[in-house]
């Protein structure tokens, strides 16, 4: 499956300054892994040392949220996967 990944501003420097790019994968995890293979610095921005999605990262599959428990959810061709991190300032 070809999926378009969009990342929030703060993470863009870790994917070569891009806002979005195409990745391949059948699940959210596979898509994120494909992203990490291309941009190894993203690994520690997304995952903890045990390989679990960091709790302050939210991944949206065309609007539906995926946290660590939903990371093996399937994706469809043409899905847009948006990666956000929590921002908490006021």
């Amino acid at each position, binding site marked *: 499956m070809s999926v378009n990944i969009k990342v*929030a*501003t*703060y993470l863009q420097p870790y994917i070569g300054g891009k*806002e979005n790019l195409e990745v391949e994968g059948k699940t959210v995890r596979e898509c994120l892994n494909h992203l990490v293979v291309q941009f190894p610095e993203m690994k520690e921005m997304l995952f903890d040392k045990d390989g679990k999605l*960091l*709790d*302050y*990262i*939210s991944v*949206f599959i065309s*609007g*539906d*949220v995926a*946290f660590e428990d939903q990371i093996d959810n399937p994706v469809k061709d043409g899905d847009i996967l*948006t990666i*956000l*991190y*929590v*921002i*908490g*300032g*006021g």
Partner: protein
Amino acid sequence: MTKFMLTDEEKQQYNRQIIIPGIGETGQEKLKKARVVVAGGGGLGSVISTYLTAAGLGTLRLVDNDTVELSNLNRQILHWGKDIGKAKATSAKEKLSQLNKNINIETINVRIEESNVSELVAGFDIIVDAMDNMPTRYLLNKTAIKYGIPFVHGAVFGLEGRAMTVIPGKTACLRCIYHGTQLDGKKPVLGTTPAIIGSIQATEVIKYFTGIGTLLTSRLLIYDGLNMKFTELKVTRDKNCQLCGDSNHTERK
């Protein structure tokens, strides 16, 4: 004549918004009747409370337990150089009460906690999130869901901002979209970022009470000041949400 009817002075004071199609004197009376809690009197809270005060929201309660520091002044426009060391609640009340004498302004100098949050929002119609940390945001979101009070979220970081309005039980809540907390440490903020996000939040409050337009519900608005872009992320209410999901209905009033 009810106590929420507008005086001649108020009709003149709010004239430029009364003439907006859909607001009118009836809408302005709704604003006069409205009771709003603004949680936080920093960057977002300064802007939100200023515009809601100016717009004639009848009862405004601002809650903050911090004192004004020099490093606040780049963004917290309610607090001025002369206020350093003063409680933000005191500093905010001084300015807001001068801006509009025709509304009830109450500022409370306490830290919002699990033990006092219900009391702080009891009897209010809407909660506006102007906090500087996620744990208190989650607490306010939880309280809003519990009592069925609409909640207007906003947050900033550097030149990035986010906003979303939550109608409990109907639209996505904060826990549907976020779980964790941001890393510790000083959070960078350009003053204009809370100015933009706080203005959006105040707009949502005014729209909610007057019934005009379409609320920012189940849509997370993302402001990217660095590239000067606004994007909207459509979010679905998470049926498995630990707070507002379908299995948690009994928690709501």
